[in-house]
């Protein structure tokens, strides 16, 4: 990347970060002070401004980006470490958002359903997704050459993605067998209108911006780490080359050809 492009990327990152900060602040302000408490759920409904946006980022943005970039990495024509870094950054941020999805969902569930956790389809498959991608991150931490790690990670991500629809199907069916309607239904049928609606919309925007900003920063760290690696490689390459200039080992003696058995 040229110096100009680096500067531009830095500037964009800064602006995105600023926008994320402002929109998040606005969401908090609107969500906590401006909007009225909901009729059914009271003040609890304020989680609505934050939980669905986080889930949206976790389940769609993050893992969508990761899936796409893994695919583009594995496809020969578009193979570039750019996709590897992007995918890794997206998964890393995605894991945090998935965990937050579960935590905020749980905070909501405790007063609404009376329990921290129920084995609903959505919760269960989200939790499985979290574990799948923790596995991906564990695999990435295994030291390897960048290309090897990239290939391994891309395959792991794709294999995990293939699993996601199967998981959600099976968990859906599994849950319908055991559904206890009384526990589930309230809370999910909140009526959203007026200031609540667009506070929630703002929440989506804010969380998406936060996601984009975090991925950009994460990507930059990854790229810088690779750059350091490349520079180290340059140095070790020239050092290694210079090793060959040292005093040549003593010339081997040429023994009598027929003396074979030693």
């Amino acid at each position, binding site marked *: 990347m040229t110096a100009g492009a680096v500067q531009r990327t830095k500037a964009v990152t800064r602006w995105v970060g600023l926008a994320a900060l402002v929109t998040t602040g606005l969401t908090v302000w609107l969500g906590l002070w401006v909007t009225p408490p909901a009729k059914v759920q009271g003040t609890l409904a304020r989680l609505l401004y934050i939980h669905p946006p986080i889930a949206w980022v976790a389940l769609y943005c993050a893992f969508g980006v990761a899936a796409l970039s893994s695919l583009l990495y594995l496809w020969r024509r578009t193979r570039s470490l750019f996709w590897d870094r992007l995918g890794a950054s997206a998964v890393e941020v995605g894991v945090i958002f998935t965990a937050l999805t579960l935590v905020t969902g749980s905070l909501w569930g405790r007063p609404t359903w009376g329990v921290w956790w129920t084995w609903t389809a959505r919760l269960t498959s989200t939790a499985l997704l979290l574990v799948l991608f923790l596995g991906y991150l564990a695999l990435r931490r295994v*030291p*390897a*050459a*960048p*290309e090897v790690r990239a290939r391994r990670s891309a395959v792991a991500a794709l294999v995990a993605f293939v699993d996601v629809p199967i998981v959600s199907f099976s968990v859906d069916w599994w849950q319908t067998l055991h559904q206890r309607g009384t526990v589930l239904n309230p809370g999910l049928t909140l009526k959203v209108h007026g200031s609540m609606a667009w506070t929630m919309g703002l929440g989506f925007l804010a969380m998406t911006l936060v996601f984009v900003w975090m991925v950009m920063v994460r990507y930059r760290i990854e790229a810088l780490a690779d750059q350091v*690696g490349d520079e*180290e*490689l340059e140095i*070790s*390459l020239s050092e*290694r*080359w*210079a*090793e*060959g*200039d*040292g005093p*040549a*080992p003593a*010339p*081997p*003696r*040429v*023994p009598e*050809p*027929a003396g*074979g*058995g*030693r």
Partner: protein
Amino acid sequence: MDPAVHLRSAVALAGRFPALSGVDLDVAPGEVVAVLGPNGAGKTSLLRACAGLVPVTSGDAVVLGCDLREDRTAVRRRVGLLGHDASLYDELSAAENVRFALRAAGVSSRVATARADGALDRLGLVGRLRRTPALRLSAGQRRRAALAVLVARAPELWLMDEPHAGLDAGARSLVASLVADAATDGAAVVLTSHEPDLSVPLADRVVVMAGGRVAEVRPGGRDVAAAPPLLVAVKGDDADVA
């Protein structure tokens, strides 16, 4: 004739370490090249890069007409590598190991059996040794079995990492005759060694590596006219072993 191996400024990485820092090397078919050099000079990496196992990340690398920068899988079935670690399945016998290698290369079952028998005979693995699981063979016998795989596959390029290591005198002269025969049949041979006394007489050319590149090239001691006495010596030693 096209060279069997053609490397120009070839760089190969082991993890993030530049195992090869810019190798220039040409090996013609029918030629034997001995690679000498201290530990960590890049000898093993050179062989593995030629086999298409380690990617060459910059420079030119063409082996047996295949451009390794483009596709390093195509060349693999045509080269034979004798590694440090014998490529044997412990639970299978020497004969089964050789047969598996041949069957994997697409040889029919009957031909594979015949060729495996021939190769094992040549390496002096006869009778009970042939049927013993590789696990229970001695280090030297395992080495012989690995050599039998190489002989049976009859590759166009032989890459031998320390072929003399751990072998008795008989087997060492056996290695000499195998190398000579392979070269006579038109295969190129690249072998690494820490023992110049053993490897230099086999080679047309001696390459000294240091710092992941070729530091020096010298003439080798291979004398085609000297081949017959060498073979006689082999037979004598072999009889002692068997």
